[in-house]
């Protein structure tokens, strides 16, 4: 299955799209933010610069940001497809994309400090597999920047300092704390991708998975949908603004997912994604036909 299909080429194109072209609804959210900022304010100037940058990157097929991030990938595959092959093909695609300068050589040997030079390394790219009933492949990817990754946070409830208990009010309190701690340092305005529950690892992973959702979607759980809305409004009242220059546009979206937990644990994980909220999705049918989504 898929033996005749050149997956490396498709994966390389997926990386190019993610690195150079932001999803339309993210651009719309940045533009909407720009329009609510005061004319001539630093916030508006910052957002104007970002919007110009987005057009330039798209037109010249060049990276939106010089930190091209970690490729984090979720692949759904039908019964009988080798995940080893998929992993090898995707890794090769990252090498090609690096050579073509869609990506910066962005992997460093942690102990020696030496850059691997080809964009790949241990756990880079980071790929998650899931077998499904569909006949084709579905590949979703984000490019997760380092500056914004540095301001992510994981809380365990209860948190006495923040008076945050094990309920959605507790979640609200720690998430707002994460935004205050981050200030503009994660290249605000950002997207808050949150997971409630899970263990320390699954919680981070599931929070990142929230970045695959469209900014404009509605959470199927009405309570969480409500909390997403409220957190977005409250985060934007903090006055941090683009780059931390002050202003009304601190976050572009809030997405919350849930996992079950151990009785002893209640984690709330906040992944902060910068304005360069890069994502690309492709569906590949058995003949190699492609459907591009974002």
């Amino acid at each position, binding site marked *: 299955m898929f033996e005749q299909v050149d997956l490396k080429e498709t994966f390389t194109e997926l990386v190019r799209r993610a690195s150079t072209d932001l999803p339309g609804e993210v651009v719309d959210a940045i533009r909407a933010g720009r329009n609510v900022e005061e004319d001539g304010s630093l916030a508006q100037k*910052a957002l104007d610069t970002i919007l110009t940058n987005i057009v330039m990157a798209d037109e010249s097929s060049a990276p939106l940001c010089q930190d091209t991030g970690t490729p984090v990938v979720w692949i759904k595959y039908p019964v009988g497809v080798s995940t080893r092959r998929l992993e090898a093909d995707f890794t090769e695609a990252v090498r090609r994309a690096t050579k073509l300068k869609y990506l910066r050589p962005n992997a460093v040997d942690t102990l020696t400090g030496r850059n691997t030079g080809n964009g790949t390394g241990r756990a880079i790219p980071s790929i998650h597999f899931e077998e499904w009933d569909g006949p084709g492949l579905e590949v979703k990817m984000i490019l997760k920047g380092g*500056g914004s990754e540095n301001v992510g946070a994981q809380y365990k409830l209860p948190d006495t300092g923040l008076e945050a208990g094990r309920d959605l009010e507790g979640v609200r309190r720690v998430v707002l704390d994460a935004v205050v701690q981050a200030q503009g340092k994660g290249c605000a305005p950002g997207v808050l991708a949150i997971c409630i529950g899970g263990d320390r690892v699954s919680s981070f992973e599931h929070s990142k998975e929230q970045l695959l959702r469209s900014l404009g979607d509605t959470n199927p759980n009405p309570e969480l949908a409500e909390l997403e809305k409220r957190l977005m409004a409250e985060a934007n009242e903090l006055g941090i603004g683009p780059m*931390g*220059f002050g202003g009304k546009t601190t976050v572009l979206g809030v997405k919350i997912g849930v996992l079950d937990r151990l009785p002893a644990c209640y984690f709330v994980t906040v992944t902060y994604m910068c304005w360069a909220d890069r994502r690309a999705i492709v569906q590949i049918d058995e003949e190699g036909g492609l459907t591009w989504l974002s």
Partner: protein
Amino acid sequence: MAELKLPVSEKSVRDLEVGDFLELSGRMITGRDAAHKWLMEEYREEVAPFLKDTVIYHCGPVVNQKDDGSWEFIAAGPTTSIREEPYQADVIARYGLRGVIGKGGMAGRTLAGLGNSGAVYLHAIGGAAQVLARAIPRVEKVFMLDEFGVPEALWVIEVDRFPVVVTMDSHGGSLHDTIENGSKTKFDELLGRKG
């Protein structure tokens, strides 16, 4: 918006205030972690003239070497500045820098150094790699390329209307402190607690 020509005098820099939006034109130099450490290990005479009365840009660029051997910047956004906090004030004083460009702001030691030496912290737009690369039409020279590699080398560059915001000035003003304090007050209010 004001244009600021580099090199710049101490007096012009002391006139700048937090919140000023500037477009820089002229010669500056890049440097990040390895460069700052190296500049403080001993006085680097060969680089000193390229630091005097100009600014150092915290940037690890993506560069391209053209067929004729010359260099160009193809992506050049700012990197996080706070890592240089242990060195910055001393590098400014020792080499007569008039400013620093980066993102995220810096802390008290640097802020005091800006006042003592007559310098400013300039915030570039994080992630705006294409806009900023295009404001760098020429790469003049590079120091320590073999030793430090592309991102960490000291690149002497010419900039043309490079957009920045003064977020820390020579009068003790810091936009970062103001915004952080404001957001904490609002945070306490949202959480229903007294500050």
